[in-house]
């Protein structure tokens, strides 16, 4: 399989500029500095055509920021994104437009991601008409076809978003993304806000669409059982870095990185029955002031002196398996 998208050393730093008071204080000799957060820190990933890459991590690990950079919503502050062999920063105007249309995003909250004042037909047909993919005379026919594809009754196309349930709205969001014939979908926690039985429906829809339309997914989620279910490969992130990358089978059978192991041990499983919980200690540290060396070392049960000073690189530990941990070198 060929790589459809490569994320090449991508970083994103957010800075909060100093306000007037802080600047004035600096003139008088204070030492206020801009707050800088490395949300994503030199991430390398490649996604193959037709695969589902699951991206897992806790809040604040940078998984959503990474997804937004891939979908072209944020621009990276370092590194580059390579789409079908072309580097984004070197694309010309029409290539950029083609890339932006080919990569679509589906958001978490089906309540805030739809404009409440636009009818479903407008939400779905606006973008393809603006980009000349569909003639405005075909708008009605096109909307009917798109709604049928995501399993919604097309006779509802003249309604407003508030007239739908959460699961139906998420389908509208998916239909809107599909309307511009994308090849790549970034799903950012797209099923987290839904009830269990509705979740199953949407997961099935994703699986069906993947086959029908030959889509590639970057599936961002904190729900490990869902990621395990639909992903081919899984990347686990912690404080802006990828700590482990491997096939879903390998990671769930035998995780290498201590953080992955801890994360997987915490995931509740329905089949396990009554149990005593043995949680990992501590909380995710602040990304404003992350720990030195390996970001995970303050919580890691296997910390050595080296972990406190050296940043571990993501290294291949077995064919197709990558992990960023000093223990593998020892």
């Amino acid at each position, binding site marked *: 399989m060929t790589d459809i998208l490569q994320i090449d050393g991508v970083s994103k730093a957010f800075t909060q500029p100093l306000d007037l008071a802080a600047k004035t204080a600096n003139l008088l000799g204070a030492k206020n500095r801009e707050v800088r957060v490395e949300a994503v820190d030199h991430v390398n990933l490649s996604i193959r055509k037709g695969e589902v890459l699951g991206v897992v991590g806790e809040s604040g690990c940078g998984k959503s920021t990474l997804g937004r950079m891939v979908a072209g919503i944020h621009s990276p502050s370092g590194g580059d994104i390579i789409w079908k062999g072309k580097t984004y920063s070197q694309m010309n105007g029409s290539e950029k437009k083609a890339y932006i249309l080919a990569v679509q995003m589906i958001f978490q909250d089906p309540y805030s991601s739809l404009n409440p004042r636009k009818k479903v037909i407008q939400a779905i047909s606006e973008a393809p008409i603006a980009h000349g993919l569909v003639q405005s005379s075909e708008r009605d026919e096109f909307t009917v076809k798109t709604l049928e594809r995501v399993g919604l009754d097309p006779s509802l196309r003249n309604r407003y978003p508030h007239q739908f349930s959460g699961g139906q709205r998420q389908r509208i969001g998916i239909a809107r993304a599909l309307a511009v014939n994308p090849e790549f979908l970034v799903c950012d926690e797209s099923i987290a806000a839904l009830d269990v039985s509705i979740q199953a429906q949407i997961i099935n829809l994703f699986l069906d669409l993947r086959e029908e339309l030959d889509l590639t997914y970057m599936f961002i989620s904190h729900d490990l059982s869902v990621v395990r279910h639909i992903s081919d490969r899984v990347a686990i992130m912690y404080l802006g870095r990828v700590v482990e990358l491997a096939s879903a089978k390998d990671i769930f059978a035998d995780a290498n990185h201590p953080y992955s192991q801890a994360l997987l041990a915490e995931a509740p499983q329905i089949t396990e029955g009554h149990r005593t919980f*043995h949680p990992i200690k501590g909380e995710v540290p602040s990304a404003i002031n992350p720990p030195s060396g390996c970001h995970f070392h303050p919580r890691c049960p296997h910390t050595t002196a080296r972990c406190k000073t050296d940043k571990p690189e993501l290294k291949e530990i077995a064919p197709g398996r990558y992990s960023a941990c000093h223990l593998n070198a020892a």
Partner: protein
Amino acid sequence: MTSPILSIRDLETHFFTRGGVVKAVNKVSLDINEGKILGLVGESGSGKSITGFSIMQLIDEPGRIVGGSIKLKGEELVSLSERQMRDVRGKRISMIFQDPMMTLNPVLKIGAQMTEAITAHEKVSKRDAWQRARDGLAEVGIPSPEERLEAYPHQLSGGMRQRVAIAIAFLNRPEFIIADEPTTALDVTIQGQILAQAQKLCSQYKTAMIWITHDLSVVSGLADEIAVMYAGRIVEQGPSALVLNQPRHPYTAGLIKSVPGKHMVGHRLYQIPGMTPSLLTLGDECAFQARCPHKKDQCKTGPAMTEDGARLYRCHNPITGLNISEELGA
């Protein structure tokens, strides 16, 4: 058998809306014994949270408890006046909410809020209350509790705030605690910590607890008993292992099968067809019959609760002989 701490009989909470009467809680009966955790499971709109609020008598207009009884150690709560109920809330029964900021006041220090919860119910000196607050924080695993008492809620992380909320709930050593989805908004590793803490405190202080959630996998590890709610009614109830491994009600079976597990990776998930019915239009029929694969003619009249060994279910045509773990290939 010991008498239950909390005993609910035929509880009915209705909402009188302009569109008609919504029977949010419809003849719900539950018993919870000392030191036991009951998992109350259901999807949005099933009435699980309203059951929790009814116990606390926190139902606002246009809602009202119209029938049934709630007995705390034999003492009727429904007929208590608002004045008498204030002595029960926070002292004998306390509640943990999904969003800890519903419990915490953003403009008061943690210490002030915790000591207030103590002095509202008991005559103790400020210093004693402060010490008890400090011990309470230490109990839920908060590092340097002395300093945290001086902090404001916004200075704590989400997981830390939820721990404070739990500490407050346990402060007066209540006989009964209602936990309404307290881990839904938290990360997996923090969720693990909170579950461990709740489990430990409940067995330590012999507190009875209702854990309300939509996530079957959370309660499967935590609860001694599970009650499944659908459209205002309990449809199945019994010891966790029994309900999860050999569900009788088709809705319970559907819920369990629609959770992604390790044995069906990549395949389509089971999906319950259709959507939850509107509680406004619901008549006498079994609320699940429109979505039920086991439907019979009898289902036009609502089934009564059937007793079957240690469990109860409400179905005319229950599933028999199904073993979920076999079906899932475990």
